[in-house]
């Protein structure tokens, strides 16, 4: 993918202080977009403090094809982004309804408010690129292309779910769309993502295949205090893996504020410590996220290695549907609600004459119907039968071993019925 960005050209010339913190031996890549930060950051008493200034929004963008076009997206692109975010929002709202009606159980973590991050990144990926997520994975799966029907059925625990009902809310997998899950423990998916990126590099360098697939790993602010995160930052930078680490910093890990748990809350700074660019972006603005994502993805595709992107975002609902969400300040919630990414994109599209109200309403209606249909489909789908119990434990069911009668246990007819004792 050819790019107009060269290693030394800054993205925009407004402030020299927007340069990234990188080890002195490397060429500084172009500056990235940022946001006005309102976090009360503890002032550090050393040289770095002087370089930190409020990062301002970008004014001009260097574009590949149309350098004179001031807009960030075309109409088609805008509508795709809008539809994807509406799908994420409607789907999650429907999940909440269905949960309270007793259609799904367990832990369900909703993504309301964070749609800009998922849409901003995943809509730039191809089908063979991989996405790894956490338990807050419904919208990542949808953005990657898993059908709403398959995700809803999975949530209802039906056979037609993307994981045959065996995974549930926190384990959305799709081999077809390269959605590598869905992990219940935080940080667990990051090494898996690193492995997927390793395969990409292996295919290129050992198997000599034409492979420039990238992997995007999504995780939260709480994960950034976990060892697996740092171990993988190290390996990804060391082996120059085609991976983008995306931190969805929504400031809260259940009831633990990011500021109460992290010695240095600026997560993007941890990238340069490992030798990769670290970027902070306004995660409530899909266009800003998209611009950062473009550069990070093309960096990875060119073989230049990983990027750490910190998206400042917010979840409008509690941590999960079981969370009463009493700890967060109402003023904070109101502030971020005013920055709703969907409202912002809608405003952008209309103000820049890329779409009119009618077209957007059509999309909203279309998505409403789609989500309703997904619920109907999931309702009508059958529950898994007993025979499914023992399938898929092993890829090769000989792994259940040889029974006392000399036959492999998987040959026992009771095995396929699901009633065998293994």
């Amino acid at each position, binding site marked *: 993918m050819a790019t107009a960005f060269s290693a030394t050209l800054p993205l925009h010339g407004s402030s020299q202080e927007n340069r990234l913190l990188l080890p002195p031996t490397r060429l500084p890549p172009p500056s990235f977009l940022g946001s006005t930060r309102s976090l009360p950051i503890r002032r550090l008493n050393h040289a770095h403090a002087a370089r930190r200034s409020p990062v301002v929004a970008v004014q001009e963008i260097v574009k590949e094809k149309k350098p004179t076009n001031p807009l960030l997206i075309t109409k088609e692109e805008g509508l795709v982004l809008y539809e994807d975010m509406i799908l994420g929002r409607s789907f999650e709202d429907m999940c909440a309804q269905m949960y309270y009606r007793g259609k799904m159980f367990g832990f369900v973590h909703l993504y309301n408010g964070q749609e800009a991050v998922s849409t901003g990144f995943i809509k730039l990926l191809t089908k063979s690129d991989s996405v790894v997520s956490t338990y807050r994975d419904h919208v990542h799966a949808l953005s990657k292309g898993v059908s709403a029907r398959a995700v809803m059925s999975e949530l209802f625990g039906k056979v037609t779910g993307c994981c045959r009902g065996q995974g*549930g809310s926190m384990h959305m997998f799709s081999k077809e769309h390269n959605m590598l899950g869905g*992990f219940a423990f935080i940080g667990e998916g990051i090494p*898996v*993502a690193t492995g997927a990126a390793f395969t990409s590099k292996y295919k290129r360098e050992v*198997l000599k295949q034409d492979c420039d697939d990238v992997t995007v790993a999504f995780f939260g602010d709480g994960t950034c205090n976990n060892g697996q995160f740092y171990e993988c930052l190290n390996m990804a930078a060391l082996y120059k893996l085609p991976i983008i680490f995306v931190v969805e910093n929504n400031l809260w890990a259940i009831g633990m504020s990011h500021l109460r748990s992290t010695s240095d809350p600026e997560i993007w700074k941890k990238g340069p410590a490992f030798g990769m660019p670290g970027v902070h972006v306004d995660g409530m603005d899909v266009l800003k996220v998209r611009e950062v994502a473009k550069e990070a993805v093309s960096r990875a595709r060119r073989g230049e290695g990983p990027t750490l992107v910190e998206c400042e975002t917010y979840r409008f609902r509690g941590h999960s549907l079981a969370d009463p969400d009493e700890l967060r300040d109402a003023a904070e919630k109101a502030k971020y609600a005013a920055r709703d990414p969907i409202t912002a994109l809608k405003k952008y599209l209309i103000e820049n004459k890329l779409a009119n109200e009618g077209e957007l309403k059509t999309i909203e209606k279309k998505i409403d119907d789609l989500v309703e249909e997904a619920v109907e489909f999931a309702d009508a789908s059958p529950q898994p039968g007993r*025979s499914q119990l023992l399938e898929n434990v*092993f890829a090769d069911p000989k792994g259940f071993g040889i029974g006392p009668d000399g036959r492999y246990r998987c040959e026992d007819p009771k095995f396929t019925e699901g009633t065998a004792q293994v």
Partner: protein
Amino acid sequence: MAARIHGGAGAGAATALSTFNPKKLVAPSRTNLPAARSSKRCIVAGGGSDASKSLSVRHSQKLIASAAVATKAETSATTGTGHELLLFEALQEGLEEEMDRDPHVCVMGEDVGHYGGSYKVTKGLADKFGDLRVLDTPICENAFTGMGIGAAMTGLRPVIEGMNMGFLLLAFNQISNNCGMLHYTSGGQFTIPVVIRGPGGVGRQLGAEHSQRLESYFQSIPGIQMVACSTPYNAKGLMKAAIRSENPVILFEHVLLYNLKEKIPDEEYICNLEEAEMVRPGEHITILTYSRMRYHVMQAAKTLVNKGYDPEVIDIRSLKPFDLYTIGNSVKKTHRVLIVEECMRTGGIGASLTAAINENFHDYLDAPVMCLSSQDVPTPYAGTLEEWTVVQPAQIVTAVEQLCQ
């Protein structure tokens, strides 16, 4: 301590293998039985001449129906030459052959590349295959095990080495949650054909943390298979089988067995992952063991034979799942069982095996199942203390005498 292949193709082993008729293998539409992929499989571990008929060898390569169990005379007669090597060389040979055969097989671990492996199992491989195929990782077990799992999900076949099995405790999250469970939670979409291997067991005064037996901790994880090698022959065979398996397999090696010498066939062979190995057929008592304890048992067996006993010794090899057919046939013959293992007493492999035997073969037992395990003690450094935590041949002799009264 040289390895010797003991026993003939005991009745137990041969019949175990000849009853596995692949034509009877029911392949329901939704299960992922290897029928379709059988062209790549060559599970052969027959006993004697029945083997070639019993297990269908569908691989295009000509494979000898090598005996999992063969008399010394048989080996030299049927295979002719063979070559002698040490157990770690056998592991390396198996690994190298599989890496030659399939370019997706790769190795990752600490010091596996330039250093050649801390026990020399990967010696020379980095020179031959390059730094990416034999990857020297930083010291981050959890992350590089997870990386191996992610690579396996996306098409590679990594062999992940724990420099010492004990270090894999740091990777427990990845081994339990991702390695074991991911095939299931993804509804069968992703396979994890990894091999996790490394040396464990009590060595020579290595101290408590380097002397751990992790098989007891991992055995409950659903979705993984565990095998333990004990001779150069089965080390190479199990290594190859584990790499070819679509399931995640944990291969337990033992620090003190790496220098065992044995003559193994020149021709290609693999060992069956789910089967036990008949080491010495007998009539009086069944002794079940694995890994290093096999040699303590065989040493005790010499004493026992002199005293007039006829023990049947089986190396269970497959720690999860247990080969209940070979074991069951033996119990039905001798009616007495002694389990000798290096695992801890509490919750070890022996404990599970005792439960399985009692559940399945209770009617055939003339005496309670006896299990000799290591003491529930962190392995001490002092040589004398260390010796007393592990089962010694004298204890085995005493136990057999007690059971056979």
